[in-house]
C-alpha cells in the first residue's frame, strides 16, 4: 500500500505558483508540499494556489505543515488559496479556521484572480 503524494508545479507568472497535489497529505506529503513551496518562495513567489483536486484525504499533521506555509506567506505579505477540495477537506479547513487566513475556491480560475488581486 502506498499513498505517496505527488506534487506538480506550474508558475503562470513571476509571483504566482500553482501546486497540484495527487494523493494523501500526511506528514510526508505535507513536507513535500513545503519543500516545493519554500523553493518557490525563495524564487520570488508570494502567492500560492494549492489545487487539491486529486487529494481525497488529509490528516491533521499534513494540515499543520500547510499552516507553516501559510504563516511564512503571511509574514512575507503573500497570499494562499486552495481550490477543488472535497467537501470533507473543506469542512475540516473550516473547523480549523483556515478559511480566515486563506481563501477556498471551487475552481482554479477565481482563485488565481484573487491571488493576483483582480477580485475580492
Amino acid at each position, binding site marked *: 500500500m502506498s499513498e505517496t503524494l505527488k506534487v506538480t508545479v506550474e508558475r503562470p507568472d513571476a509571483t504566482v505558483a500553482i501546486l497540484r497535489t495527487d494523493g*494523501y497529505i500526511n506528514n510526508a506529503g505535507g513536507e513535500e508540499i513545503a519543500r516545493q513551496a519554500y523553493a518557490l518562495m525563495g524564487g520570488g513567489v508570494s502567492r500560492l494556489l494549492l489545487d487539491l483536486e486529486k487529494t481525497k484525504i*488529509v*490528516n491533521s499533521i499534513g494540515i499543520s505543515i500547510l499552516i*507553516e506555509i501559510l504563516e511564512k506567506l503571511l509574514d512575507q505579505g503573500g497570499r494562499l488559496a486552495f481550490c477543488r477540495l472535497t467537501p470533507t477537506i473543506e469542512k*475540516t479547513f473550516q*473547523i480549523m479556521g483556515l478559511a480566515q487566513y486563506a481563501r477556498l475556491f471551487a475552481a482554479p480560475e477565481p482563485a488565481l484572480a484573487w491571488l493576483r488581486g483582480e477580485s475580492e
Partner: protein
Amino acid sequence: MSSRREVHLTIPIAPEMEITATAQVAALGEWMEMGRDKIDEVKMAVVEACINAFEHSYTPDRKVEIDFRIGVEDAGQGRSYLEVDVVDAGKGFDPSRVETPSLPAKLKADRKRGWGIKIIESLMDDVRIESGEHGTRIIMRKYR
C-alpha cells in the same frame, strides 16, 4: 437489515496504516447506505484517532485495535449508525486537559499540531474518550 454488524481490525503502528482502517469505513458505510460525504467524515475521524494512538499512546505492543459496528438505536426502531472504537494499550491521557487549538494561536506558535480531537469531535455526531493507565478507547458514532 439486521440491527448489528461488527468488524474487528488490528493494525500495526506504521506509516499509512491508518488508511487500511478507512477501507473498512467505506465498505460498512456503503453497505448501510450512508452518504458519501458522511463516509468521508468518518474516514477522516478514524485517521485522526489512529494517528493520535500512533503518536501519543506509546503503547508497548505497537498496535492499535479498531472495532467497527453498525447499529440501530432503540432496539432496532431508531436511527442507524456507524460506530468505530479506536483502542490502544498505551499510557492514556486526560481528555479534560487537552487544549482546544485555535489557528490565530497556532500561527504564532512553534508547534502547529494538536488538532486531532477537535477534528474528530467536529466531524462525528457523538464522541466518547475513555482513557486511563491501561490505554485509551475513542468511541465515535455517526448517524446515517
